């Protein structure tokens, strides 16, 4: 019977990450198609809350409490404990979110279990085998790939699946960690919160982004106001980040985040390939730019030609009038 293991990622506050609930939903769909089972695994010093929340999405969740993980980098010990839970289920597929922690676990798990890895999937289906869709070459191509080995590891991008709880909550099985931790654990000496650090931008449904045209950190105030009005996140191009106007965590593009929001509003962004790669699969793309021939005109749904501050402020007014 095919088994689809979901490695749940706990947030810093102990809750389950949104991305994990998306992956869990996907696992359930695959299990149904394959006539198999979807099982969650949550590894943490105190996994109960996250495991309980994940159980809303899966019939069974294994919660491994490993107090030794506390104050250590999570991914390597988590991968070891997951490998132990997988045990001799050599055929089981492992699904993870394609965030920094998920991919770290994926890599470690690949070495521990000999499984292949297909990363950054945009869709996963079951057609007698697992078929994984990924974007290639900056999105120019969409490839469908499979594993030649029985079980594989897949990391899934945020926002590709809508999280849907199961009809009934699943059970949580507590388990103690089996065996010694063979891989070195890295100590976390300190956790620093930085002002202005926002929720992971990959999970945002709506993103309002600013580019070179915004002109400076003050210009990003307008971007923030629009994002707030729409309930979205603030994004930026590399030019804006390199100029120091906004932190790297908000950068979208080839060397930043790849996002697939429902709405992407690009203010003062030319749409050059390095940025395009990060947002071109957004469902709706609206651009505001002074230059009607900017590359973004080729793939936006709507291009408003004009000054981004004038149009942006008018948009704020128009949006507030609707809700007000």
């Amino acid at each position, binding site marked *: 019977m095919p088994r689809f293991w979901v490695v749940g990622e706990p947030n810093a506050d102990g809750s389950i990450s949104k991305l994990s609930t998306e992956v869990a939903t996907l696992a359930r769909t695959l299990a149904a198609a394959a006539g198999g089972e979807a099982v969650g695994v949550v590894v943490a010093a105190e996994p109960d809350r996250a495991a309980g929340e994940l159980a809303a999405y899966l019939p069974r969740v294994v919660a491994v409490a490993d107090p030794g993980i506390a104050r250590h980098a999570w991914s390597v010990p988590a991968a070891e404990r997951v490998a132990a839970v997988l045990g001799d289920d050599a055929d089981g597929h492992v699904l993870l979110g394609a965030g920094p922690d998920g*991919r770290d676990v994926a890599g470690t798990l690949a070495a521990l279990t000999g499984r292949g890895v297909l990363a950054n999937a945009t869709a996963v289906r079951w057609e007698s085998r697992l078929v994984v869709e990924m974007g290639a070459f900056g999105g120019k191509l969409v490839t*469908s790939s499979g594993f030649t080995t029985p079980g594989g590891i897949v990391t899934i991008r945020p926002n590709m699946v809508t999280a849907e709880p199961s009809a009934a909550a699943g059970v949580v099985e507590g388990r103690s960690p089996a065996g010694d931790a063979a891989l070195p654990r*890295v100590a*976390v000496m300190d956790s620093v919160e930085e002002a202005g650090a926002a929720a992971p931008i990959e999970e945002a449904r709506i993103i309002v982004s600013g580019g070179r045209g915004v002109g400076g950190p003050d210009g990003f105030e307008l971007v923030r106001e629009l994002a707030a009005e729409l309930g979205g996140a603030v994004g930026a191009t590399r030019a804006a980040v390199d100029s120091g106007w906004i932190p790297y965590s908000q950068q979208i593009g080839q060397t930043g985040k790849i996002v697939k929001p429902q709405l992407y509003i690009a203010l003062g962004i030319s749409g050059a390939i390095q940025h395009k790669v990060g947002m071109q699969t957004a469902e709706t793309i*609206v651009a505001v730019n002074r230059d009607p021939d900017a590359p973004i005109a080729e793939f936006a749904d709507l291009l408003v030609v004009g000054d981004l501050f004038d149009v942006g402020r008018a*948009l704020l007014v128009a949006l507030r009038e609707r809700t007000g």
Partner: protein
Amino acid sequence: MHIVVLTKPVPDPAAAAERLGPDMRLDRAASPAVVNGNDEYALEAALKLVEAHGGEVTLLTMAPPGGADTMRKALAMGATRGVLVTDPALAGACVRSTDEVLAAALRELTFDLVFSGFDTSDGNAGVVGAAIAARLRLPYLSNAAKIEPEPDAGLVRVRRITPTGYDVLEAPMPALVVCTQVLGEPRYPTLKGIMSARSKEIASRSLADLGLDGARVGGAAATTEVLDSRKPPARGATTVVRGSAAEGAAAIVSLLASRRLI
């Protein structure tokens, strides 16, 4: 200090000519190869550290023989030498083979740190670093925004980017670190660096040299395969609105409303 930087030649993203061959593998002849962009950040970080602490930087690449040419640019940036693992059996190798081969090559070297780039522009997987660290039992520190080795104490401190800021990680060396662009812009090779690169050593290793079996580690043993590829669905035509700011704003609101986004 001795830092090994993992680098990979990839099709030049600026040329935008990447494509799959008839065998559904990357057609490496279709575009000129360059050093993977993210690897340059790792290399820059390594160069800065050996400039501060003394030492050398070795490049390690698994690639077809032409990989030596691509390595020259990285050598020109200031790396001391290169190691190229190349073998016909490796064509089409998957992630699992890559990390097994690189781990085997690393076992032959003595180092304080191994740096890898965030991911590659031709594969984007970004998991090779973690897999190698697991195989070699090295402490694994990823998403690095800052790297501070203390050679006298034999440890390294790394700032790891988190959603809310960063964690400060600490581990004994030797260790493996995955680098991000936040570490700083890569330098251009100096022209003197380019001229001196021609005389820098690039050692070649085959699978036999590493004691590996091509049937187990090469393209023939790939754990994944591409089944199909297609172009993504074309987006519809772009509506262009000129006129006053108010008209532009109204057009946006109308579109968003029609798509139930507001």
